[in-house]
């Protein structure tokens, strides 16, 4: 078991204190700070606490109750979305919101207040959390809900693991007829078409676009879908592929990425409608376990920003041009329109507007310079960068992106910290 972040973009050593039972958690003593660690699917250092304590939570893997009438589930914080889906899908329920991987824990989903392809209709995961229990470093066990310890409830949703350890949580599910998604793929060209498609697809439960950010004329594929009315399921292979070792870094060069992108858009080059199982629709990359290793030893970055609605078109055109010009290969780029449903989370990332997420190989300074340039553009229109994906933003950028941080620090547990937090607060406050 290694305790890296998904981007594996820097090496750090940790003190490890795994948590197994919620009824008798004793934090390690000493001056070092603490940070919960779920499945490490965050790309950067929100789940890293170099030289200090990580509290792996996967041992907190028990379910507490599942109300099949009301569609409410309570479980310990280390339960994964994968485990939840295997339990609830056969019973006609689905997660209210899911990210692009099912290998995340409930605690991680709350701490990053994750969003999915249905943000325009459903908001973030935090919108469905009814209550959770928080263990602070002074030993206080607090039940948090919109009515009880409401401030801590809000601060913990999107609170980046800094307000204490979530031991268990309860949240609402959505009803489904069956495990299939009625999905439509539409190839498009140009940013205009993306915005038009998003507008005309507002009534679809799920929308997202994949784009080839290396092409100057921007081609992409728009996906939209709904939970299908069919009850039956499709036979899908459960076999996963694993990447057993780090690829040498030359494997993933610009030419290969271009090849991949071209073949991907070729596969989706015709508009088509089909029924697919929920797994390939939501989690296309989960079949290849550890796909992050194809980026080699140096790891990689993801840059995900949000541009508020009114500037979205202009600013995204500018950003995409800049990236295409930089030639720093981006493997997967995703565009998605966020809606205006606000989350209870104080530091929650999503806001009404458009989000762009791109992967970059780690070319050291060159990549970081590009990110800094992008940060400035995003900052200038009051946009923001997603901490769950971040490994670079400066304290100045962070404080611009999240002016709420001034209120947030009142709720940060004095013994909790992370590599991210130390970076964006410049060491001390």
């Amino acid at each position: 078991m290694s305790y890296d972040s998904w981007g594996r973009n820097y090496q750090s050593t940790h003190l490890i204190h795994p948590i197994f039972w919620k009824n008798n958690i004793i934090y390690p003593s000493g001056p070092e700070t603490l940070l919960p660690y779920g499945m490490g699917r965050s790309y950067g250092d929100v789940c890293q606490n170099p030289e200090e304590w990580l509290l792996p939570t996967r041992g907190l893997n028990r379910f507490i109750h599942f109300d099949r009438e009301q569609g409410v589930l309570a479980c310990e914080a280390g339960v994964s979305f994968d485990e939840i889906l295997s339990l609830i899908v056969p019973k006609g329920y689905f997660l209210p919101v899911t990210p692009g991987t099912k290998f995340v824990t409930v605690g991680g989903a709350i701490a990053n207040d994750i969003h999915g392809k249905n943000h325009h209709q459903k908001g973030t995961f935090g919108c469905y959390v009814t209550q959770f229990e928080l263990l602070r470093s002074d030993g206080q066990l607090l039940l948090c809900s919109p009515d009880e310890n409401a401030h801590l409830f809000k601060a913990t949703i999107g609170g980046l693991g800094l307000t204490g350890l979530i031991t268990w949580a309860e949240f609402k599910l959505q009803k489904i007829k069956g495990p299939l998604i009625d999905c439509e793929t539409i190839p498009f060209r140009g940013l205009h078409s993306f915005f038009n498609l998003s507008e005309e697809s507002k009534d679809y439960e799920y929308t997202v676009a994949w784009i080839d950010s290396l092409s100057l004329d921007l081609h992409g594929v728009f996906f939209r879908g709904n939970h299908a009315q069919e009850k039956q399921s499709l036979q899908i292979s459960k076999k996963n592929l694993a990447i057993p070792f780090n690829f040498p870094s030359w494997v993933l060069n610009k030419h290969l990425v271009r090849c991949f992108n071209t073949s991907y858009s070729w596969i989706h080059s015709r508009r088509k409608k089909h029924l697919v199982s929920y797994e390939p629709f939501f989690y296309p990359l989960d079949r290849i376990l550890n796909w992050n290793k194809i980026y080699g030893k140096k790891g990689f970055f993801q840059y995900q920003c949000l541009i508020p609605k009114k500037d979205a078109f202009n600013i995204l055109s500018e950003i995409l041009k800049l990236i295409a010009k930089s030639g720093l290969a981006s493997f997967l780029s995703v565009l998605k329109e966020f809606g205006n449903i606000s989350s209870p989370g104080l530091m929650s990332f999503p806001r009404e507007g458009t989000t762009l997420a791109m992967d970059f190989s780690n070319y050291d300074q060159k990549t970081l310079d590009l990110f800094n340039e992008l940060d400035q553009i995003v900052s200038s229109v009051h946009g923001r960068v997603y901490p769950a994906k971040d490994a670079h933003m400066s304290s100045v950028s962070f404080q611009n992106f999240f002016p709420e941080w001034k209120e947030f620090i009142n709720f940060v547990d004095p013994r909790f910290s992370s590599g991210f937090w130390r970076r964006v607060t410049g060491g001390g406050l």
Partner: protein
Amino acid sequence: MKKIAILGITSAIALEVARLYAKNGASLLIAGRDEQKLSLLKKDLTVFGASDVSSYAIDFAYLENHTSFVEWLWSQGELDCVLIAYGILGNQEDCEKKCELALEVLHVNFISVVSLLHRISQKMITQKSGNIAVISSVAGDRGRQSNFYYGASKGALNIFLQGLRNKLHPHGISVLTIKPGFVDTPMTAHLKKGFLFAASASVAKGIYRAIEKRKDQVYLPVFWGFIMFVIRIVPEKIFKKLKL
């Protein structure tokens, strides 16, 4: 509907086995030494679909409690299967320093299991059917300097189970010896995890299958059967010089 008793349900491996039975609507009798943990597991197994879960708090190291515990197991009718999962790893260095610690490993992993099985096998003979499954370990296949107190406790257990299997066979009762390799559970939390480590859920699937097929012995994951074959055939003359 199956009725299964799991002794040492707080073990990460045991919980995964119990969940597989719960999914099929089994009725479960669970035992462990911590009341609070038992209540968490009872809820979990109910969510997974167990038709009924009853629990009993007992520290198996106290042999004097075994009779009433086994009476409780059979108080609600016949059982299809008893899985014994609890165990302690002990720390080899500490065991070498302090004899009581070494004996405790033997007491918990071997003596207490014998005491339980003594009573359980009588009940099974009376009901003329049943399945006994015990989690031992690959460590019992050969003594090594790095953990031979633990290894000896599991090795003794293996021999006892062989004899018991032989004895119970004519009564239509099967006895399964489970030999897992490295499994990622709280017991091994302090060890550095290499590629040899298996997830408890996948080991549990193997246990479930072996119980259902009424096997005698199983290595999990199965490649450990091969590794242990090699380890067993190394001549003692050479083996004693190895640092294993």
